[in-house]
């Protein structure tokens, strides 16, 4: 599904990712771990096409297509979803209006009729239940006045609604208490299928107690220095990141 080859990326002329190689197949959950500043969020930004990120070298192939040629909205319409680390507030734009626009843009791209209000609201209620988001949230403006936990739940809710093929969750666990963490993880697990894939970006191992990854990669100073099964996460938790610099 996703094939990153020799990816070199810079931001403001500074090289952040040095030589990333990563393959993700459908049905897989990958965890990318690493200390602050290792380039985790930059990798997410490169995948969704943020324009601050400059691709210096390498390629990203997504479902057989050159991902780097697609605009951010095209990538989204082709099934790439980013759960933002810091979801932005959009005052005055209701969640209903926002998500209806999003879902209908995506449907238009697939040559599907727009969803009727009734169908949309029904779908919305269904997905809210799935991720445990209270109904009143949906009448509010996008992320406005949401607590940190609500914002993260809201990201997972949007993911449930948009049904992406490749979901990238950028530090979705940061700032969550253990209950919120469980709810978020639970949502991710329920949405998992053999047709989609998830990349979980995290600093801590604790999210991986609830979302069991098939692969764990350690990103350190712009390189993936170690890739292994889920046991790597625990090893990392015990030893910390310091040992990496010694190796």
């Amino acid at each position, binding site marked *: 599904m996703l094939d990153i080859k020799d990816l070199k990326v810079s931001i403001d002329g500074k090289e952040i990712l040095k030589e990333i190689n990563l393959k993700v197949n459908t049905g897989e959950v990958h965890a990318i771990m690493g200390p602050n500043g290792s380039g985790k969020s930059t990798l997410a930004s490169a995948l969704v096409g943020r*324009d601050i990120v400059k691709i210096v070298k390498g390629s990203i192939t997504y479902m057989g297509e050159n991902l780097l040629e697609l*605009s951010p909205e095209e990538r*989204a319409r082709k099934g790439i979803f980013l759960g*933002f680390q810091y*979801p*932005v507030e*959009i*005052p005055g734009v209701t969640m209903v209006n926002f998500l209806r*626009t999003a879902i209908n*843009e995506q449907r238009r791209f697939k040559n599907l009729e727009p969803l009727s209000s009734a169908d949309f609201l029904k779908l919305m209620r269904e997905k809210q239940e799935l991720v445990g988001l209270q109904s009143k949230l949906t009448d509010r403006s996008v992320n406005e006045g949401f607590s940190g936990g609500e914002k993260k739940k809201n990201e997972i809710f949007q993911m449930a609604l948009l049904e992406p093929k490749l979901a990238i969750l950028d530090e979705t666990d940061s700032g969550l208490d253990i209950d919120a963490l469980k709810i978020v993880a639970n949502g991710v697990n329920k949405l998992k299928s053999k047709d989609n894939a998830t990349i979980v970006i995290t600093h801590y191992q604790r999210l991986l107690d609830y979302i069991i990854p098939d692969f764990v990669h350690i990103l350190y100073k712009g390189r993936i220095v170690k890739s292994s099964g889920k046991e790597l996460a625990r090893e990392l938790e015990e030893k910390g990141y310091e040992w990496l610099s010694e190796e």
Partner: protein
Amino acid sequence: MENEQDKILSEVTESEYKYGFVTDIETETFPKGLNEKIIRKISSIKKEPEFLLEFRLKAYRHWLKMKMPRWANIKLPEIDYQDMIYYAAPKQKAGPETLDGVDPELLRTFDRLGIPLDEQKRLTGVAVDAVMDSISVKTTFQETLAELGIIFCSFGEAVKEHPDLIKKYMGTVVPYTDNYFAALNSAVFSDGSFCYIPKGVRCPMELSTYFRINAANTGQFERTLVIAEEDSYLSYLEGCTAPIRDKNQLHAAIVEIIAMENAEVKYSTVQNWYPGDKEGKGGIYNFVTKRGICKGDNSKISWTQVETGSAITWKYPSCILKGNNTVGEFYSVAVTNNYQQADTGTKMIHIGENSSSVIVSKGISAGHSQNSYRGLVKVAKNAKNVRNFSQCDSLLLSDKCGAHTFPYLEVDNDTAIIEHEATTSKINEDQIFYCNQRGIDMESAIGLIVNGYAREVLNKLPMEFAVEAQKLLQISLEGSVG
């Protein structure tokens, strides 16, 4: 990123103004120029009573002594008042009392504008007075409204049928001495709408006036007079469009509202006059005086405006809060794109005790446009316990446009509580990216964000209008982003 964003935001509108067509219809026009003879001719063609001609001539003589005001934050070329036509009327049989009397071409015009004049085709709940150039073409639902004692007709008809009301109220809120354009309008006004809601009546439908400029080289000068008697309620709508022409055209209107005890009037405007082209050529000069007086205690006047059109907009819908416990409101969204200029705001004149006012102004500027809010809050010496809240926000979509705020405060009673908040922001690229990442393209994202920004004001519009206004906002800014 900067470059990309700048590129996106600096590309100005590519979309065509969709109401820019011209109706090919025989028009009766007066020769160009302004003098007493022309004024007498306007008055005589409209078969006006003597008092009205007197009023016009007094206004004209006063206007001659006045000078074009220059204080607004706009660049305004000289206007040659002798190079303009002051009366243009689509030719039709006298007195279009029935639809059959109206030229089919005119009906088609209003159909194309989305204002069908056939009552069968209308959504119930909105009565329309359709004004083209200098005359009213047709007023719908007059009979239905008359059953409740509501008078809704063209200004010209009101002059004939209800001269006593005109004589009593016309010019009492906006006297002809008020300002340069009010004097001009008072001298040469041609038609407009008149509305009278009797005591204790809640008007069951929205009343609306649709103004259309069609003829070239013509100024449009209409008057609207709204009288709401005790315990009455009215929601009034106003819409405007004009054809695409290279030459600027002047629109100088007057709107007067009188609200008696416990009366409430909501006056909503969606102004979409032709704004000129991308280089700033052509477009309407929209210089309008709108004012309401809350005469009786506990009365309320609320102005809501969505201003997207006109080359230059210059207007300040105001409230004189004369009665005690009166309420004045002003909700405004003003969008300027390309080379449009807007200097708009309100005046809240507090005279009555416990009177309160709310001002919410949202300016949105794109392209090379200039957008100013100018507002006065005045508290008279004997006005105790006045409250005012003002909020003026500006949103910038390019780095070549300007947003300005000019709040004026004159408070002569120290029991007043006045609050003023102002913000200026640039459209936030994180918000745009968030939308993009959900599959929403740049243009729709801007539309969403701008509509969200203006929501507080749009929510004040009647439902049917709010949807139109949202679309209009989106269209006005179309192409202002990549």
